[in-house]
């Protein structure tokens, strides 16, 4: 019996495609974000509010992932920016190959900001690099403030945590301070924003973050 060291990353093929996407984004000056949350935390609505605030000349494009339906693409297309739906037909996450395939025949030279909405899931999208500059995790206050401890992988890798639906705080037993502490336990470097897509509170902070991060 021989023990042969191989030292291969299991997702090496995904990482290879992600690296080539990242290189292409860099070459073309595209800034790319990967938005991850559980289903119903408000990813699509945050994107809608983001698009609402953009002028028509903004060079933004979106990819939105779901297991079935193109409902999200239809919602997002209303703002007049290019949108493509990635329907995974069962897969619980996006991978780099899906992103690569859905960017085909798109005029990448006309895109400055690429927003990718992942499939609603706090676990599986964590492992798959999409070539993005940063992962953003969205946690709504109708979930639990201990989610960062229960799903440490995504909070560990995200650059920013957005606490959404803060207009509902009076009605739910969600401890904002505890959620912040828990996120910082698994990722001392994580940045945190609080907002409500419904009332608009905190959206200025999100837009400022996005603006600043793109220019970094």
């Amino acid at each position: 019996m021989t023990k042969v060291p191989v030292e291969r990353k299991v997702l090496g093929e995904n990482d290879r495609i992600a690296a080539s996407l990242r290189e292409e984004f860099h070459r073309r000056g595209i800034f790319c974000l990967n938005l991850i949350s559980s289903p119903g935390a408000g990813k699509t609505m945050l994107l809608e509010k983001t698009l609402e605030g953009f002028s028509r000349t903004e060079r933004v494009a979106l990819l939105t992932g779901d297991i079935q339906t193109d409902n999200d693409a239809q919602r997002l297309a209303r703002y007049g920016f290019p949108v493509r739906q990635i329907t995974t037909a069962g897969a619980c996450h996006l991978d780099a190959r899906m992103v690569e395939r859905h960017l085909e025949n798109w005029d990448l030279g006309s895109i400055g900001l690429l927003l990718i909405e992942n499939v609603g899931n706090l676990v599986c999208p964590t492992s798959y690099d999409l070539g993005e500059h940063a992962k953003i995790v969205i946690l709504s206050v109708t979930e639990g403030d201990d989610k960062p401890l229960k799903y440490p992988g995504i909070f560990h890798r995200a650059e920013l945590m957005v606490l959404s639906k803060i207009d509902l705080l009076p009605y739910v037993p969600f401890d904002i301070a505890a959620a912040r502490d828990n996120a910082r336990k698994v990722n001392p470097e994580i940045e945190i924003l609080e907002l409500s897509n419904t009332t608009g509170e905190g959206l200025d902070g999100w837009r400022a973050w996005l603006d600043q991060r793109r220019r970094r």
Partner: protein
Amino acid sequence: MHELGIAQSVLDAVTVELDSRPGSILKKVGMRIGELAAVDSESLRFSWECLTRETPFEGVALEIECRAWQRRCRPCGLVFAVSNFQTLCPQCGTEETENEGGDELDVAYLELETP
């Protein structure tokens, strides 16, 4: 939930390795999985069994080494395992520590019967 996809990627990686070693018979796959990799070992083993059933790899074991989340202290250089989310350096108490591992998802080695 995505362990079946991960198991397929393990199988792909192993197949590529074996292609360059004709005549070798695979006996065991050694993996390294970090506690922050968001991959469940038991679920991965089960997926591997399902994928390899009635194939030449049926019965090949997955040996999984679980890796703790580690941080490195910038001032004193100590590398330490984070337990109970304590990321302060246990030696000098500073907060200036950075990630040093814990999100691994690697095929580390193969055990082969060689011709």
